[in-house]
């Protein structure tokens, strides 16, 4: 499973929305994710990929696509496949 699918699974599990409604253009508001959902997703993504996402970086995510692109840029190439 690629990075995008893994993050989609995490976000769908936490927010309890159907993952099919999550696209790269979806904002957290559209996914109905509140601030706790977002923080829980950040922690879960950090644990899954073994990375740290500083708050100042996380605050720049405008939509799901930004989140995925950021994680992809931080995860070693081999894990992206």
């Amino acid at each position, binding site marked *: 499973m690629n990075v995008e699918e893994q993050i989609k699974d995490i976000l769908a599990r936490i927010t309890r929305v159907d993952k099919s409604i999550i696209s790269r253009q979806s904002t957290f508001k559209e996914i109905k994710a509140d601030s706790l959902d977002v923080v*829980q997703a950040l*922690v879960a993504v950090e644990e899954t990929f073994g990375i740290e996402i500083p*708050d100042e970086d996380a605050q720049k995510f405008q939509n799901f696509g930004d989140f995925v692109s950021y994680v992809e840029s931080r995860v070693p190439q081999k894990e992206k496949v």
Partner: protein
Amino acid sequence: MGGDYAPEEIVKGAVLAAQKDDVEIFLVGTASVLERELAKHKFAANGSSIHIVGASEFIKENESPVDVIRRKPDCSVAVAAKMVKSGEADALFSAGSSGAAAISAIQFIGMLEGVYRPAIVGSLGSFAANTVMVDLGANVDCKPHQFLTFAIAGSVYAKKFLNIADPKIALLSTGSEETKGNEAVREAYSLLKNSGLNFIGNIEGGDILNGKANVIVCDGFVGNVLLKFYESIGGRAQAWTERKLKRYPPIRALAGLLFKRLFPATKISNETEKQSGGILWGIDGVVKIAHGASRAPQIANAIESAKEAVKAGVVESLKSELARLNQGGKL
């Protein structure tokens, strides 16, 4: 170690609880402060014990409760939640930031299978002794499926604490018809109707106190506004009656006596003095939160009722109800 009167009243309340009952209490917070405070009290152990667990940080009132997770994972309420998760403690009690307690519980203890967020269930007391309402304020914005887990939590509460075998569940709305209410309520109606629970449909505000339903389900915004309005009725009724009878001192004195002896204002419309807050239903452990303004007697009551909740197996009961619905694919 939060609360408006912490640490004095919290420690005093813990000592009171330890004197009353056989209970092991862990005070979590700045160790030196707690040691100093505890040293002010002498208590006969009576099978009880009080321990101090050091925590270097705490969540201040002006901080976001979400900070517990990433910025202050070692704050006192988070440490206490982790003790419940590890089994060192059976229950968590906090009179500090309710949000921080809820978020610590969600993140560090975890939710029961099928539950998105915890809810607060409360009995309506004297006016409607066989009715509970849920959610009373933990979830201001709710997704439709949350109403279903609220109904299950309320139903377990009614069975356990009100001894009602098959509680009647109703959804609070602006009309009895299925089409009434906002979008979330209308969707919730459909989920509840097909849930297999004893759902009797929508009820309106006028039905809250008439016993039509044993479990009234609403979002935490509506529930919290109603709770505070309801809690204010007793005091207002007393003040209004005494004002109206100002010209008739003997009758006024009699009315004052009636309110004092027979219908104390707090008992007319709320029992929060005794209940001292509520349990967060849906967490995989007993978590009790109390008003920040709680004093020692309320703290002691809250500790006692957290112990009762553990003994009554409320989490296990909720877990099995949820599992039953999960099997049918309802959650």
